């Protein structure tokens, strides 16, 4: 290793420690949503057990049902048992760049697992109509990197009268920690109403059982500001190309920020559903409806300013990626 590699590797270790802290924070605060890798009783195999005897063959019955539940719990995730096999045990001490018949000290064969891939997804790019007012909104995600480590950019915002009314942009290092889960560490920049705010972001993003897409991120900003953003969505295939996408998002803050019209506690909640038609996997127009509400101190601030605390929005836009 040269000096640069040493520095990089130290930095990576440091970041990893922080990523673990992020997981801890995010998991602790989002147990209900994110920590669902074990089967959930209400949707899991409870029903299966309850009436298994009636529906099962005599030979199998409840015992077998139980067996298969244990199976599926062990089939994914978990940590290796102490006697797990060493994947390098057969190497005889040789590596891809050392040992007999090697072509050179520098490895020549590199496959796509060492190649970076990138995509940019506009999940929403839409016109919004609410109480006679029109605006535009975007929600985009860019990813660049290899299978297990990526640079992720998330950008979400509203544009009203040609001006950015509210925008959140995050740049994160996304690191795969489990089959369906990545931890994310980086920065968030808020702009729009009031002064800009910068946050350190720590979160998890992934796929919960039953295909729920979860994004949960905790933030720490200047002056002891803290925040939490929870986002979940689901894709329901009516046909192979007609897809319903329910979505829920909540923002919580540890401290009020009057200049940005934010109160502490649960600040806002958005629940929506979009119906899209995928002309191709990469291009799908949609229509949707959203209900957005402000709560607690945030709602009070809005009332004082003479604004609505909740509204229904009609949206139409396109989802596309490249």
């Amino acid at each position, binding site marked *: 290793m040269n000096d640069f590699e040493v520095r990089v590797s130290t930095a990576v270790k440091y970041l990893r420690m922080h990523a673990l802290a992020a997981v801890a924070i995010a998991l602790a605060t989002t147990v209900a949503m994110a920590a669902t890798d074990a089967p959930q009783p209400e*949707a*899991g195999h409870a*029903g299966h057990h309850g009436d298994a005897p009636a*529906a*099962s*063959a005599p030979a*199998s*019955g409840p015992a*077998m049902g139980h*067996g*298969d539940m244990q*199976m*599926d719990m*062990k*089939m*994914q*995730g978990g*940590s*290796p048992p102490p006697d*797990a*096999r*060493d*994947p390098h045990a*057969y*190497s005889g*001490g*040789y*590596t*891809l760049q050392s*040992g*007999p*018949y*090697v*072509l050179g000290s520098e*490895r*020549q*064969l590199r*496959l*796509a*697992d*060492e190649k970076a*891939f*990138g*995509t940019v997804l506009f999940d929403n790019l839409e016109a919004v109509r609410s109480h006679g007012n029109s605006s535009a909104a975007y929600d985009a995600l860019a*990813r*660049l990197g290899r*299978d*297990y480590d990526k640079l992720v950019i998330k950008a979400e915002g509203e544009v009203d009268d040609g001006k950015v009314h509210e925008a959140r942009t995050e740049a994160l290092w996304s690191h*795969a920690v*489990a*089959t*369906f889960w990545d931890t994310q560490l980086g920065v968030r920049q808020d702009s729009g109403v009031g002064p800009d705010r910068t946050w350190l972001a720590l979160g998890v993003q992934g*796929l919960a*059982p*039953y295909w729920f897409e979860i994004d949960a991120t905790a933030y720490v900003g200047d002056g002891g500001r803290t925040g939490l953003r929870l986002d979940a969505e689901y894709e329901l*295939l*009516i046909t*192979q*190309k007609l897809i319903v996408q329910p979505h829920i998002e909540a923002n919580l803050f540890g401290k009020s920020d009057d200049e940005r019209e934010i109160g502490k506690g649960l600040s806002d909640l958005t629940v929506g559903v979009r119906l899209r038609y995928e002309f191709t*996997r990469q291009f799908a127009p949609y229509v949707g409806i959203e209900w957005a509400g402000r709560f607690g101190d945030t709602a009070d601030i809005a009332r004082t300013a003479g604004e609505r605390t909740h509204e229904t929005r009609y949206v139409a836009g396109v989802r596309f990626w490249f």
Partner: protein
Amino acid sequence: MLSLSPFVRPARAAAGPATTGGAAVLRGTEFSLVVAESPVNFTGAPRMATTINGSIPAPTLRWHEGDTVTLHVTNRMRVATSIHWHGIILPYQMDGVPGISFAGIAPGETFTYRFKVEQSGTFWYHSHSGMQEQTGMYGAIVIDPRDGETIRADRDHVVQLSDWTDEDPMRVLAKLKAQGDYYNFNQPTVVDFFRDASNDGMKAALDKRRMWNQMRMSPSDLGDLSATTLIYLMNGSTPAGNWTGLFGPGERVRLRFINGAANTFYDVRIPGLKLIVVQADGVNVEPVTVDEFRFGPGETYDVIVQPKEDAYTVFAQSMERSGYARGTLAVRPGLDAPVPQPDSRESLTMADMMGAMGGMAGMEHARTPGMDHAAMGHKAGMHHGGMAMDHSQHAMGGAANAAASTKVRHARTEYGASTDMRVDMPRTNLDDPGVGLRDNGRRVLTLADLHTVGGPMDPRGAEREIELHLTGNMERYSWSLDGLEFGRSTPVHLRYGERARVILHNDTMMTHPMHLHGMWSELEQPDGRFQARRHTIPVQPAQRISFLVTADALGRWAWHCHLLLHMDSGMFREVVVA
């Protein structure tokens, strides 16, 4: 995405368009092969292919066992290339894997391969560089036996199946990395759910989906690609192009089937004809008569047919049933026979996901009213689940190393992000034709039907065991062995001269054709009895199979899944024999 393949650029040395739909036959001991970019048009859209001597497939090379062949391969492209002689036993420097056997063939250079041919039968050759195999670089090798042919036939046709995409294959991979089910348009829908609920009851419909959804796996995940991007070719002809092989009335016709596809498993049959399988991977087997066989990229089967009518359709449907390759056997050009519809799709079963345990779990579902479809699929797993357990008990009482160990040992690197499932109670039976072919009313070839003539090449038993697990994560579209992609792996070391047992344990829901370069893979039954000598062994979902290898070939060798996208994603190991 961010990668631009050279394949979409205009050719530097563009000659005329590629010849498709047939291959020249080159004979002798000295061959000149020229690799270049050539325009092709399979779909109505012009594209650039990578070709050998300007044709797709490349010329059929006809060798004679015992000869020393010399092959001059000239690279007229602007990127490096290579040719690998698939299944040929030769010195490692001649094996043609860039970065392992040699440095590759740089633009403008000629590399000369020279080796003695010590085997006979049907084999093939292809590029081992990047995605060039997908873009047209594959051809057949037919080697005549030194002591004369023992398989009697009046006529001989190579039937090489392949697949073509108009997209840049690296772009296809990029799309799959972004969305693993990009090309799967047969996913369970709400409409399907209500149909099931109305036919079978709400509970059955929920049960059918519960475990799949809980595990975030899809029962429709039969193939990564589909006719959405692929067009299926037979000897370089599209289905409309209808490759035609001629025969004379009353002739015995030998068909040398080669799966030279980059990413497609084919289910092959010729309605109206029995197929007498006489050779697998270039090695003669005791003749076995079937209606149909499945084979994956890299595998070959030679079959004898005895046509009576004037025309028959050679029908090769893709495993995920989105399309087919097709040609005709006829007494004269211009004839055709009815072309069947692809079979309806069958979903993966619990046996495919959970192995023997899935079969057992399937038992209770099988009795649930209205779950006929699931029950049908489970039948195989149910029966075999029992078998696997019997064998494990049998093996425990037997002599050490007489049969493959049945104790499943997952690698510690299988518990992370690279792996989406692990099978604890695998299926070990070899008599399952696989999903979509079970109980289809036809006699379908299985591995258990293959018996190599003359038995194993080496009478020794295994001195030790090597266990490798086939792993992947469909959601991330990553593929690996023991949860480690090639870039994170270390080689498998075989001691020169040793006889080792390799256990391949499939912890994924896909079938992987595993190809070991340089040495034969001698497939064995679960009880340790010899089954068949292969160069490419398909391992079904949740299956655990074993083979013996004699490490008689010094050097470094490649060992990988022959689905090109899986290989390039890292389902690849280097082997060091020293």
